[in-house]
């Protein structure tokens, strides 16, 4: 089990700040995205629109990145600050 933090429109679309995910670790970011998208259509939509970013330990990472036990993982849309 691991937790994924959600922000902004993704948090609102899913209706939760944190998703508890039942997936075996370590796993690739791509597998984690797919796993969550299967259960949450809004994540699937964001992903297909290339509007889903993933940060592991506060750094944006690509699909190949390996998620380890104890990592802080967050899903969010493209950023719009400044």
């Amino acid at each position, binding site marked *: 089990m691991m937790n994924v*933090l959600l*922000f*902004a*429109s993704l948090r*609102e679309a899913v209706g939760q700040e944190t998703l508890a995910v039942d997936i075996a670790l370590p796993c690739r970011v791509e597998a984690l995205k797919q796993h969550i998208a299967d259960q949450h259509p809004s994540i699937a939509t964001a992903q297909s629109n290339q509007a889903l970013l993933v*940060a592991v330990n*506060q*750094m*944006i990472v690509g699909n190949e990145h390996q998620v380890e036990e104890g990592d*802080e993982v*967050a899903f*969010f*849309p*493209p*950023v*719009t*600050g*400044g």
Partner: protein
Amino acid sequence: MANRLNVAHHWLDVAEQLAWLSEDSAAGAVVNFIGQVRRQNLDDDVAALTLEHYPAMTKHVLNGLIEQAEQRWPLIRIVIHHRVGTLRPGDPIVFVGVSSAHRDAAFDAARFLMDKLKTQAPFWKKETTSDGERWLDARSCDEDAAASWD
């Protein structure tokens, strides 16, 4: 190099920041940028703008951008102040200030910090208009501006 980095609900005393940026004896140039809430966006009147962020990550990213700027240009001082929470039209959102011996480095670094902040720092804007609320989309021109530094 010295720097000030803040993410906060409040705004800051801009004159005090400018004084701090310019007080080093080697400083010949100070460039600063202020971004503020426009009263209109996409042809709608903006009633409010709410900024959310990912606190643990925000300072991490902004500190990384400050380090990159220091490595690229001979800078003296840097200030980044970004607000979060609910703001009104005309309210300032972000202050980026840089001092250097000469203007070229100060201009480049201030613009670099803004371009990268726009595409890398985890802030999100939700606009309230008479039509309701909407999350703002990232602009592709911001991606292009950020990529121009790579």
